[in-house]
């Protein structure tokens, strides 16, 4: 079965995970097509190949719906980076990351990079996050810190009205550190939480490029390592080789 010509061989895989309706597809859209448009709920998963310099990076946009939950660990298998996405206006989406999605990443590479991304930042502070501000992350302490578990508020409502921020940066960083602990990576030289916790707005484009570029920069060593080893974790369908009897079926 030939690979479609359009599908170049990806060097590395990045997976976006998160509850339904937090804006995973919109984030990817904003980054790849530079615009925000209405998306329908993703079915199963979608996939985009980003040419980044000399490298091909495949970005998997997963379905957040419970129905497709079982597919998550397949998408994560062999991933070099996982973007855990929540909705800053919805505490529950952050909780879900830990409860439901973190375990899916067990199949990811051992040196996988994790980013915690709070999307829909434009809904909580339209002033700060209007179209592409120049500064980096904006600290917003005091807005949502005391408003912890309220549970289950539905994000993505009327965009005109400012919603209360339910998840603070502190919470996200705390989660990041718990992710590292869960992975047993806390003592390794992992990037600090400040570098991998983002608040973004797919709608205005705020921080979206920074998010993807930071992650691409960080997976670069992983690409180089893979290239130098010459043993891709994905099978090169174009390459005709005799299957080796020693080849293991699992990681």
């Amino acid at each position, binding site marked *: 079965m030939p690979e479609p010509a359009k599908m170049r061989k990806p060097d590395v895989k990045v997976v976006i995970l998160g509850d339904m309706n937090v804006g995973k597809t919109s984030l990817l859209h904003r980054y790849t097509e530079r615009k925000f448009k209405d998306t329908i709920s993703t079915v199963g998963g979608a996939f985009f190949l980003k040419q980044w310099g000399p490298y091909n990076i495949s970005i998997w946009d997963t379905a957040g719906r419970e129905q497709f939950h079982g597919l998550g660990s397949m998408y994560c*298998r*062999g991933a070099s980076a996982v973007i855990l996405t929540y909705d800053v206006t919805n505490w529950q989406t952050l909780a879900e990351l830990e409860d439901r999605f973190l375990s899916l990443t067990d199949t990811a590479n051992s040196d996988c990079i994790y980013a915690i991304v709070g999307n829909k930042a434009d809904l909580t502070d339209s002033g700060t996050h209007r179209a592409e501000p120049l500064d980096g992350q904006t600290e917003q302490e005091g807005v949502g810190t005391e408003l912890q578990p309220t549970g289950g508020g539905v994000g993505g409502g009327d965009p005109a009205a400012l919603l209360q921020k339910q998840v603070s940066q502190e919470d996200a960083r705390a989660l990041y550190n718990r992710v590292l602990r869960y992975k047993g990576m806390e003592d390794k030289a992992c990037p600090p939480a400040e570098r991998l916790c983002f608040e973004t707005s797919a709608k205005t484009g705020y921080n979206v490029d920074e998010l993807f570029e930071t992650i691409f920069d960080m997976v670069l060593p992983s690409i180089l390592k893979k290239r130098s080893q010459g043993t891709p974790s994905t099978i090169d*369908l174009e390459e005709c080789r005799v299957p080796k009897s020693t080849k293991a*079926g*699992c990681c």
Partner: protein
Amino acid sequence: MSVKAFELVPVVERELLMGEKARINIECLECCGKYLYVGTNDCFIHHFLLEEQTNAKGRVVYLSQKLQQKHLGLKKGVVELKAASALERLIVLCDATIYVHDMLSLEALPSGSAKIKGVLSFCVNENPVSADPFCVELGVISSRRRAVQIYTVHEDRVQLVKELGTPQQPCALSLDGYFLCLALASQYMILNYSTGASQDLFPFDSEERKPIVKRIGREEFLLAAPGGLGMFANAEGISQRAPVNWSENVIGAAVCFPYVVALDEGFVTVHSMLDQQLKQTLSFRDGHILQDFEGKLVLSSTKAVYMLVPLPLERQIQDLLAGNRVEEALTLTEGARRNIPKDRFQILHKRILQQAGFIQFGQLQFLEAKEHFRKGQLDVRELISLYPLLLPASSSFTRCHPPLHPFADLNQLTQGDQEKAQSCKRFLISYLHEVRSCEGTNGFREEVDTALLKLYAEADHESLLDLLASDNACLLADSAPWLEKHHKYFALGLLYHYNGQDASAVQMWVRVVDGVLQDSTRSDLFEYVVDFLSFCPSLDLVWKHADWALQRDQVVGVQIFTKRPVGGDQGSRLNPEDVVTYLQKHSHALLLYLEHLVLDQQVQKERFHTHLGVLYVERVLALLSQTSCPEEEKEALSQARSRLQRLLKESSLYRVQLLMGKVEGSESLLLERAVLHGRLGEHERALHLLVHQLRDRRAAEDYCSWAATACVPQEPPNATQQQQGTRLYHLLLATYLDPDVPGGVDSTAAVDLLNRHGHAFDAADVLGILPEGWSLQLLRPFLSTAVRKSAHAQRTAQVALGLARSENLQLLHDRVSSQPRGGVIVMNKNKVNFHPWHVCERETDRDGERE
């Protein structure tokens, strides 16, 4: 949606299988080469021969002929059929047992060992690891144990290779290499039967929905996933393609690259693996089985068999293009890269790219169009030919057939919208410009350059001149009328020039300069023509237009001659004599030309110098003769005189007598006369003129310094410049001191001269001729200069003497010390008195020998 990728073609009608018997259903299918096997629920295997034909309408039809049918002698339905054509065997699953039958006779093999019992389902390994071509590897799901088994089927026996336990009861499987892809009760998994390693894929409730496990290629499987997805997974458990979105109740799936075809209760859906989009939906009721066999898609209801015939790729692509779905068409084309031979693919791909380009061109999406034209290596003439009149009349180009686009020409495309037409033209300009600068323009330089010239001319584009001034292949015959039409006469001249027709070029420009033709490209066209003529290698052309240029403006026109490069080959060199003769009637131009020869080029010819001198003199005399004397004329006169004086002083070639004859008549040209006298060596007369008639002491002194350097001394013949100077100053002094002139001795002037130019005099001589009564005080500066000069000369001489001595001594020292120690000093025996010089001489001789 709306690609028509497949057509449904009936293969075996109901009558052929079961006639009117209502209870009989199709259970399974196998298609191998031209044979079709159908297993039914009444334990029959039907064997058909299929004949593929193309009917008058170009459609594929199948003629099916029933070869035979065979009852297996059981009461169960036939569950699965697989043909092993290399063994000529048909593998049959019926009543939980696998039987091996002969493929043609359908007879069961006599040997009782050729069967496997307790089988729920099986599959054939299409990518077996075993090298033996005369056996088939089967993956089998045991109905008795939670296990899968690997068997090899030989011509006359079957052999168990391996058995592996599974965590749950498997219900569907597929096999590729060592990899078993299994649907278990609650999940899919990959199992390597060689190592026993397993890999969970994802959960799936096989009791709720029928699982699908379909091998689609080397180590890649297509699986039915929750939510009606078709998931792709490879042997490592990684998904490399995004899933396709089926309905919830998919019964069967098959792959016919680049499409994934799925069957549910009411429809056959076709998704592209390239973009995961739904491409086609066919309504199909009571669908039962959908399978692909060696690229053939076979579909059946419970009663009849059909074939899904893929439409030719090119037709699918053309349909997409007809719907302006450029991206999809290109994706489909590129997806077929490996399915068709390379050379055919390249032709197809290029053509599709070109067509895509034209579609985007029609939509004025020029950026995309350009990219596709470039990638598709479009014959640039296809594009040019869209624009009326741009292709040269001589071009033999005809558009390719079938046409790449539906447009007759630009007018039809834009429907008279001028703005659109303009943007199309701008696009062509930029496109041709790029084509021109990068590749070899596919060898159509004439067409490209001519079209570009026409576009530039029409658009009044500044690059027109750049094009014509640089290397180009514009066709003259075709471009000239076009340039005339757009009044680009200057450009037309350039084109003539580029084509070696300088005469036509100059003629064209002359008419523009004269105002016969209107073209405002260059406001300085006259200067341009003069410049052009000055470099023009054809002398005929120069002589022909020189009159015109000089009549128009002598000062500029004469540049035809003066700016001409001095070098150059013999044929294009002008003879100055001819030019001077020719210029007689253009006096100002003549003057300028002579100045050019004499002053700039410093031609050392008496004729030119004299001629120029005469002209200068005439000019001065003419100005002098004018009685009125306004300021500017004074100015002009002084300028004219200074020019004359400069010539007289600097040149020594002119005929002095001739000029003298002209000047003598005028009382006011004393200075000039003095110089001429000087040239004749008559310095006394000259100084006399200056001192007594002009009464300009300053001029007299200047004369002395000039004459000292410029005039060839008459006597003594070999006097140095300094001696000449001294002689002249003495003459001047004598003139001042001459008592026999009106006014007598001018002692003031004499004293001043001495004091100022003391160094130029021989002090001893001067003291001899000075009047007795002059005080020492009066001559103090002169005397002190003289004393200093003499002292300086003496000391300098002493220093020189001293230096010479020391040099001599040093030399002597070197000679002596360089003599080898203990060496033999050869003495001249004849000389009794030893003297160092002799040693030196001997040594010098020996040195000479050594060197």
